[in-house]
């Protein structure tokens, strides 16, 4: 058992005892201390707390930036301390209020949400969107900060989810939505404009990749950019027109699709490749000196990252975003 001293203000401190193995977040919530939280798996950073004078368990700072670590920030949902800690709320990311500008159902699985630009970001980073005080999810940004007057997300529908059905059916143009961020290191860095780039993702992994591709092209990237998007079925693909248009404007961009479950006619015409991994190898066999961006589920990112590394990409040149699917 260990003690957490939650500092509400300079002269107001609350003491909470954690039971064996309990996280700081759980302990605080169970005793009625209100701490914002989202994913509970150490990704969204909603539950970030700060401790400047206690020992912080290493696993609760995984994925934070060097400066965040140095300033004593930690993820309370992953923090199981061995000794007493003095903690306080972080005000690193203030919640901002944004407004829904546009909502379009692109396919029966994917909605496009555009909200007002309430904060600064880089294409490919992600934000936390709040449905209510205690329900939040993170989404990657598909828009461009200086060329678009909105922030764009692509939301995949999970029928039994607590968040995505609300985006599809609950929220309307004109509604306010609270957002927080940005986070993530998956964005274009303009100091290698002639480097080849491989951008690969599954499903709505296209959102950050579309953002990164546009950011690169608008920044004057001259090297070849291969955007390879996978989906289980052909119906899972979207944005084909937008991508075609982008290809017309920028010949250095090449867009390819890979569908794993083709019906017989499609397989016969070979209009799409089945296996995204072997397709990536055929399209860009040598990745020495290339920049790689991967966005999708954990098994995809893991397998593709390994393959890209073995095909010559440097570890530091492979950026990835793992999309989480939440149990409802």
């Amino acid at each position, binding site marked *: 058992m260990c003690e957490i001293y939650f500092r509400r203000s300079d002269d107001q401190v609350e003491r909470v005892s954690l039971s064996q193995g309990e996280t700081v977040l759980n302990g605080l919530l169970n005793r009625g201390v209100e701490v914002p939280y989202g994913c509970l798996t150490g990704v969204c950073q909603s539950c970030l707390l700060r401790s400047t004078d206690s020992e912080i368990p290493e696993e609760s700072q995984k994925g934070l930036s060097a400066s965040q670590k140095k300033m004593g920030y930690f993820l309370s949902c992953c923090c199981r301390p061995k000794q007493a800690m003095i903690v306080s709320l972080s005000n690193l990311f203030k919640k901002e209020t944004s407004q829904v500008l546009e909502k379009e159902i692109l396919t029966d699985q994917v909605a496009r949400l555009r909200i007002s630009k309430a904060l600064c970001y880089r294409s490919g980073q992600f934000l936390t969107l709040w449905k209510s005080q205690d329900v939040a999810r993170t989404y990657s940004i598909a828009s461009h900060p200086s060329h678009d007057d909105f922030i764009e997300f692509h939301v995949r529908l999970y029928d039994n989810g607590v968040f995505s059905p609300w985006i599809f059916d609950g929220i309307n143009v004109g509604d306010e939505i609270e957002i927080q961020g940005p986070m993530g290191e998956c964005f274009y860095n303009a100091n290698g404009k002639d480097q080849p780039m491989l951008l690969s993702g599954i499903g709505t992994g296209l959102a950050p990749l579309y953002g990164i591709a546009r950011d690169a092209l608008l920044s004057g990237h001259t090297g070849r950019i291969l955007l390879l998007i996978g989906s289980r079925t052909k119906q899972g693909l979207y944005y084909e027109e937008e991508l075609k248009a982008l290809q017309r404007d920028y010949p250095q961009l090449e867009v390819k699709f890979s569908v794993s479950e083709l019906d017989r006619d499609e397989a016969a015409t070979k209009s799409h490749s089945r296996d995204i991994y072997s397709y990536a190898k055929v399209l860009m066999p040598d990745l020495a000196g290339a920049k790689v961006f991967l966005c999708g589920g954990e098994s995809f990112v*893991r397998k593709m*990252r390994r393959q890209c*590394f*073995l095909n010559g990409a*440097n*570890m530091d040149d492979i950026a990835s975003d793992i999309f989480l699917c939440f149990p409802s």
Partner: protein
Amino acid sequence: MSVYEAIGGAAAVDAAVDIFYRKVLSDERISEFFDTVDMAEQHKKQKAFLTMVFGGPNAYTGKDMRSAHAGMNLTVVHFDAVAEALVSTLEDLEVPQGHINEIVGIALSVKDDVLNV
């Protein structure tokens, strides 16, 4: 001057780590030990290992090497595979033979601890 300084210090480790990790991942004798969910974490470990065998500043002791590899049932085959990957990495980077010998010497000095014998 230590061999670590002679071959370029931390920059030499940075140059070697991707080449070395690629080699061990491609070697069927040992790839399973290195093929983990968290590649970034594994990459960090390879960096620490290379810093150690290059004779650089590191916090490893023989006891650490022993406990880190305990229960993995490693054999000479595994040890040799890693040593081969190490030597071939250094050759790729055109490190002079004298330095390679010195580095292999450091690797051999922890062999018993790694194999837990």
